[in-house]
C-alpha cells in the first residue's frame, strides 16, 4: 500500500476508535450500570473464594482462592468486553441506522473491524485496571509472588484469538438482523461454561473438557493464573501460549475473510439494513 492510501486507512482507523470513545462518553449512564454490575460480580466471586473455608469446614489457602476467583472474573470481564464490542459492531450500527453510511465509505473492512478491536482492547484494559483497583479495597490480596510481566504477555497473546473469535461472531448479526445478536450471546455463555472461568476444566465431563480445548479462554485463564498465582514466567508457559497464537493466527484472518464473503452475501440478499 502506498503512503496516501495508508494515510487514508490510518485516518479512518482513528475515526473509528474516536467515534467509539465518543459513544462511550455519550452513553455514560449505560457504562455506569454495566461497570457497577461487573464490580459487584467480581466482588461476589472474591467473597465466594473467601467463604469456601467456612463452607467446607477444612483449612484452605484463602488468598489463593480469592485470587483464583478474581482472576476468572476480571479476565472474563475483559475478554467478554472485547468479544462483545467486536461481535456487536454490525448490530450497533444497524441499531443506530448508520450502517449504510459506514459500509459505503471508501475504507477497507479489515481497517473497520481491526480499529473496532483496537478500541475494544484499550477500553477493556482501562476498565479492567479500574475494576482491579476497586476490588482490591475489599480484599487483603497478597500479590508478592505474582509475575505481572508474564500476565500482560498472556493477555496480549490471548487478545488476538479473542478478537478473531469476535470477528467470526460479528458475522452473525450481519447475516441475521433479527437473531444474530442473540446467537452471539448464546455463544458467549457457552464460552463461559466451557472455558473454566471459575473452575478448573478437569471438573468437567470428558466430552466437555475436549470442547474446552478449543476455547482460547481456557488457555488465557490458565496462563493468567499460572502467572499471578504461581509466578510462572511467560517463556515457561509454552503449553498455554502456542494454542493462543495458533487460534489467533487462524481465527483473525479467517474471521476477516468470512466476514468479507458474508458481506457480499448480505449485499446480494439486501439484509445490510434492518428493514432489508
Amino acid at each position, binding site marked *: 500500500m502506498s503512503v496516501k492510501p495508508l*494515510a*487514508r486507512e490510518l*485516518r479512518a482507523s482513528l475515526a473509528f476508535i474516536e*467515534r467509539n470513545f*465518543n459513544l462511550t462518553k455519550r452513553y455514560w449512564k449505560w457504562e455506569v450500570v454495566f461497570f457497577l454490575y461487573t464490580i459487584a460480580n467480581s466482588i461476589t466471586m472474591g467473597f465466594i473464594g473467601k467463604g469456601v473455608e467456612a463452607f467446607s469446614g477444612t483449612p484452605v489457602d484463602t488468598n489463593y482462592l480469592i485470587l483464583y476467583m478474581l482472576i476468572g472474573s476480571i479476565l472474563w470481564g475483559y475478554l467478554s468486553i472485547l468479544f462483545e464490542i467486536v461481535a456487536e459492531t454490525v448490530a450497533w450500527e444497524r441499531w443506530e441506522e448508520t450502517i449504510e453510511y459506514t459500509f*459505503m*465509505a471508501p475504507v477497507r473492512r479489515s481497517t473497520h473491524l481491526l480499529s473496532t478491536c483496537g478500541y475494544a482492547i484499550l477500553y477493556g484494559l482501562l476498565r479492567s485496571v479500574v475494576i482491579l483497583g476497586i476490588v482490591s479495597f475489599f480484599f487483603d490480596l497478597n500479590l508478592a509472588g505474582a509475575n505481572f510481566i508474564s500476565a500482560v504477555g498472556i493477555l496480549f497473546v490471548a487478545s488476538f484469538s479473542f478478537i478473531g473469535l469476535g470477528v467470526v461472531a460479528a458475522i452473525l448479526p450481519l447475516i441475521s438482523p433479527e437473531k444474530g445478536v442473540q446467537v452471539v450471546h448464546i455463544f458467549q455463555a457457552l464460552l463461559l461454561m466451557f472455558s473454566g472461568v471459575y473452575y478448573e476444566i478437569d471438573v468437567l465431563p470428558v466430552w466437555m473438557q475436549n470442547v474446552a480445548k478449543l476455547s482460547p479462554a481456557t488457555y488465557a485463564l490458565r496462563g493468567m493464573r499460572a502467572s499471578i498465582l504461581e509466578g510462572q514466567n511467560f517463556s515457561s508457559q509454552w503449553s498455554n501460549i502456542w494454542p493462543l497464537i495458533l487460534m489467533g493466527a487462524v481465527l483473525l484472518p479467517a474471521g476477516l475473510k468470512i466476514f468479507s464473503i458474508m458481506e457480499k452475501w448480505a449485499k446480494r440478499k439486501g439484509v445490510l439494513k434492518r428493514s432489508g
Partner: protein
Amino acid sequence: MAIAIHAKNIVKKFKKNKKIVTALKGIDIDIYEGEIYGLLGPNGSGKSTFIRIASTLLFPDEGEIEIFDHDVRKHPKYVQEIMNRVSVEASFFRKLSAYENLFYSAGIHGISKKEAFNKIESLIDKVGLDRKRLKDPLEDFSRGMQQKVAIARAFMTDPKILLLDEPTTGLDPRAKKDVQKLILDLRARTKATILLTTHDMNEAEKLCDRVSIIHNGRIMITGHPQELKRKLVNKISNPTFEDVFIEFTGLSFEDAEYGKSSKEVVSA
C-alpha cells in the same frame, strides 16, 4: 458529455415472507456528468433499491451498472471515493454531536482533522447550520436541521456523484425550500452529478434536468420535465406533472402510492 452513471437491464429481486418480490425489472438509465437527474415514483417503486445498487450497498441480480466506466461491483472503492449520499433518514449517531458525526464521516473518507475542520467551517454558513448548536447531540435537532447536517456531511467529501434519496421527505415547507436551494447551489458551484429520487412532482420539475418516472420497478418514460408535459398538449390543456404521471402509468400518483393497479382503478 461523459456518462456518469450507466445502468443496463438492472434486475433486483428480494425474498419477503417466502415470496419473491421483483423490485427492479430491467432498469436502463444513462445519467450525464453534471446533470441533476430525477427518479420520480411512489413509495415501493424501486427508487431506493436503485440508489443502493449505485452506492455499492446492494448487488443486482442481473444487469450492469457503471460509474464513470467503472463497474460498481468490481471497483467499489473507486465508486465509494467519488460518491456520497443523503437519504430520507438522516442516519447519524444520535447521541453524538454534529461536530462528532461530521469528523467521524470525514475520517472514514480519509480526510485529515485539519482539512475536515476547514471544510466544516466553510460549510456552516452555506448549509445554514447554527454554529452554536454544533456541539449538541443530533437527537436534539429538528428533522430539517438534521438533514442540513446530512447535506454538509455529503458536501464535505466533494463528491463527483451525489445520490439524494428523498432528501426533503418529511421536512416542513421552509426546510424543504432550503434543502432544494442547497442542491441547486451545489450544482452551480461544482460539476457534481446528482441523482435525486423523490415522490414530490413539483420538486422533480423544479430541480431536475431530466426525469424518469419509475413505477413497479420499471422506467415508464424519461425526458426533460417540460418536454414530458409537451407530449400531452394535444390531449390536455396546460398539463401538469401529475397528468404526465397518469398518462404513462395509468394511475394517479395517489393510487400508485397505495399500490393499486391500473386495472383496479379502471374497474372502480
